[in-house]
């Protein structure tokens, strides 16, 4: 009975979305306040019913209702409760329900925190999101209903959740990633509302910016969580595999990164409007592409859901309709998007354009590499693989270019900067990062390394140019403390996020360059040296978990004869499915990770195992954390929260107000 109630809730939500996608939009077009006013209550209704459906599916998991096909397929009575509750997103249908639930959540947030925007605008934003929800809900009800019953008889027990998913990473990664993904639907809706209303000015950009920043920050952390999870769960010591399912979030993220920068220009200077709107469309397309790729089975990948062509066609339909419609609207409204200000070849505008150019080219290249195998096969009937070596060869040089521009951007000025001024400002930073870049690897490792030198120089370039910029900003203040206080929150956000880039870059490059690994067969009491560490195998013993059995080895780690700690890698077999799996043992540290993967027993109690020493690998995620906090800080800047009076409204749309001279952060109007 309860699953049917869930099904019914979804149908009700669909009906409400159909109203939401029409009446408020109609109201906004006709100036009918009553219709516009319906948007917020309708959103509340949509949220309640999708939330109810979500809660009921979770309940079915909690009480082991194996008469529901989806529950039977993705759970088991032995599954620990925390995985039962989260197994909701362990498969296609449920994860799509999570997706729509997230969208409903974002809609509710927009409805609640949009008091500073005109009603017509809010009605349009929510209306567009309502239309999207109609597509998603129809897709769910038509092709992937999570509440379908198992007929004629319920199964005795469930198949079990994929053992690779039974992990903390599975609890946190999908919801965060989806929340970030879906956040870009909101930004997309903002762009569409602007096109519909014909109002695309600095005020629009300022309404839009916090939402874009938050979506971007959450997507950043969502991707990072996935990478972290893959690192410790898959056991090959890697943190990014350029898998076809990993790439769409990255593509979305790259477009999103370009977007938050472009929005800054649109807010400050009233230009790049068409470009900003285009990026909002592209970021949204990236998120839909991600869904499409995982759910259509078009590309083989480690974590694609079951393949079903019908679903693929349906999602493709949603993609074509929404993106096609958006582009059509874009073309119709093109005259509206023309900017009014000129800028010099060397100016902050130009540097931001270069930033956007590199990010968009990177995104397009990742897109090309991801979909090329499919096109190649359609044309030549032959198979081709495109993997990490290709992507690294393309992506790494582009990112290096981006970092070079990143150092110059914040110090340059709007409209026009003289080359003289810039080189005076940056000469010291450039020189220092070059020299230190060459020296540092030599000092630390005792050997020259071109890769490490370039890495260190680029990372230091970000840090030094950032410091120089901060110093400039505080030059007129009496003391450093006063200077620090005077800087707006969004400026801190920018600096923090850029520092995050430096940290991420350092981690990514150094862990690739300096990681060591050894695969060995060790008998009890035998040990092996790797780097400056000694690993001794002290034996293995059987263990039993709630739904698995396995073996646990004890590895004592020593450094210079001094005992560091013991590591306990495991080898498990899950009872319900019989799938074997390994649980890595990791000693995480700021400077390096020690990492042991257990292989198998080869007689006499000897076990094969792979041991890794991975310097700086934590910096990869530390960097993304900094970027995420940076994005959130920027969104929390108080100028976004201030209720705007009509006087201020008028001021920002006027050309003179846009001629601010400071950083992306900007003088508060």
């Amino acid at each position, binding site marked *: 009975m309860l699953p049917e109630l869930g099904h019914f809730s979804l149908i009700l939500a669909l009906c409400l979305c159909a109203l939401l996608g029409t009446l408020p939009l109609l109201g906004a077009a006709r100036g009918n306040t009553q219709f516009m006013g319906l948007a917020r209550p309708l959103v509340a209704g949509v949220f309640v019913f999708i939330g109810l459906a979500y809660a009921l599916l979770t309940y079915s998991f909690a009480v082991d209702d194996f008469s529901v096909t989806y529950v039977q397929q993705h759970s088991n009575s032995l599954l620990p409760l925390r995985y039962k509750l989260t197994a909701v997103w362990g498969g296609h249908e449920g994860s799509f329900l999570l997706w729509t639930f997230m969208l409903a959540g974002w809609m509710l947030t927009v409805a609640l925190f949009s008091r500073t925007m005109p009603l017509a605008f809010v009605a349009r934003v929510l209306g567009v999101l309502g239309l999207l929800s109609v597509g998603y809900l129809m897709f769910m009800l038509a092709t992937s209903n999570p509440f379908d019953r198992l007929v004629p008889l319920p199964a005795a027990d469930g198949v079990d959740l994929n053992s690779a998913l039974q992990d903390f990473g599975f609890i946190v990664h999908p919801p965060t990633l989806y929340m970030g993904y879906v956040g870009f639907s909101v930004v997309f809706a903002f762009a569409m509302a602007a096109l519909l209303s014909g109002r695309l000015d600095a005020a629009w950009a300022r309404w839009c910016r916090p939402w874009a920043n938050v979506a971007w920050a959450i997507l950043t952390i969502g991707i990072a969580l996935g990478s972290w999870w893959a690192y410790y769960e*898959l056991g090959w010591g890697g943190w990014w595999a350029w898998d076809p399912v990993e790439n769409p979030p990255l593509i979305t993220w790259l477009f999103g990164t370009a977007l938050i920068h472009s929005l800054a220009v649109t807010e400050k200077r009233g230009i790049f409007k068409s470009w900003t709107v285009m990026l909002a469309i592209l970021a949204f397309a990236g998120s839909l592409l991600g869904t499409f790729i995982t759910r259509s089975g078009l590309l083989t990948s480690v974590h694609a859901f079951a393949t079903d062509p019908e679903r693929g066609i349906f999602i493709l339909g949603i993609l074509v309709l929404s993106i096609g419609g958006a582009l059509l609207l874009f073309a119709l409204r093109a005259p509206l998007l023309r900017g009014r200000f*000129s800028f010099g070849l060397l100016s902050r505008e130009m540097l931001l354009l270069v930033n956007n150019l590199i990010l968009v080219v990177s995104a397009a290249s990742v897109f090309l590499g991801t979909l090329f195998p499919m096109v190649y096969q359609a044309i030549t009937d032959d198979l081709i693989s495109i993997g990490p070596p290709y992507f690294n060869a393309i992506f790494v040089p582009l990112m290096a270019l981006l970092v070079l521009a990143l150092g110059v951007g914040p110090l340059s000025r709007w409209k026009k900067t003289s080359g003289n001024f810039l080189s005076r400002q940056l000469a010291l930073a450039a020189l220092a990062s070059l020299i230190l870049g060459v020296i540092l690897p030599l000092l630390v490792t005792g050997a020259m390394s071109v890769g490490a030198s370039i890495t260190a120089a680029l990372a230091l370039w970000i840090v030094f140019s950032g410091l120089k910029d901060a110093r400039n900003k505080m030059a007129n203040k009496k003391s450093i403390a006063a200077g620090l206080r005077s800087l707006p929150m969004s400026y801190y956000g920018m600096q923090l996020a850029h520092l995050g880039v430096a940290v991420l870059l350092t981690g990514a490059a150094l862990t690739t360059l300096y990681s060591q690994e050894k*695969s060995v067969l060790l008998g009890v009491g035998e040990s092996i040296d790797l780097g400056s560490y000694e690993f001794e195998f002290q034996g293995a013993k059987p263990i039993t978990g709630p739904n698995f059995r396995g073996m646990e080895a004890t590895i004592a780690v020593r450094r210079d004869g001094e005992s560091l700690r013991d590591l306990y890698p495991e080898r498990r077999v899950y009872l319900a499915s019989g799938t074997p799996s390994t649980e890595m043992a990791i000693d995480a540290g700021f400077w390096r990770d020690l990492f042991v993967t257990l292989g198998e027993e080869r007689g006499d109690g000897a076990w094969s195992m792979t041991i890794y020493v991975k310097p700086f690998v934590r910096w990869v995620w530390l960097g993304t954390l900094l970027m995420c906090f940076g994005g959130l800080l920027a969104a929390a800047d108080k100028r976004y929260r201030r209720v705007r009076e009509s006087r201020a409204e008028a001021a920002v749309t006027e050309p003179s107000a846009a001629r601010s*001279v400071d950083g992306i952060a900007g*003088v508060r109007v």
Partner: protein
Amino acid sequence: MSICAFNRVLVAIVPLALMLLLSLSAEIAQGQVDTFEFDTPEQQQRFRRLSDEFRCPMCQNTSLSGSTGGVAEDLRREVHRMIVEGLTDAEIEQFMFERYGDFIFYKPRLTRETLLLWFGPLLFLGLGGFVVVRIWRNAQNNAPEIGELDDAEQRRLERLAAETTRLKDRS
């Protein structure tokens, strides 16, 4: 892409995907562990690089080094044997190509068909650069002429702006 072309792609891919799934669906990526001996550290490095560059032909999407599957294990053993026997990278690649075709390479070889793949990013960069220049030019043409500030004026303006902010913050 039209629905029709999409169908063609699906028709081409679904049987293949099924074949792969049926043949060895259990080969998911889970840390591989084997214990090869090498004569020199260079050999070990080459082994590491090559087993990263070859795709496990029976897995969903992992390199030889990332798979525990039997086929990947056999191929790793082959690569190890060839390295120890002193074959060059090119010879090893040729051996793999003869057995498995282009599918085995994670880094596609440059052929007529992969021209777009390898030079696509450059093409994007060129196109993007063109768009950037056009945006800049358009902005020049559309803009009403406003007097430019020189560096001294700019600094003065900045001081004034900072002053204003400070006064505002105080109030």
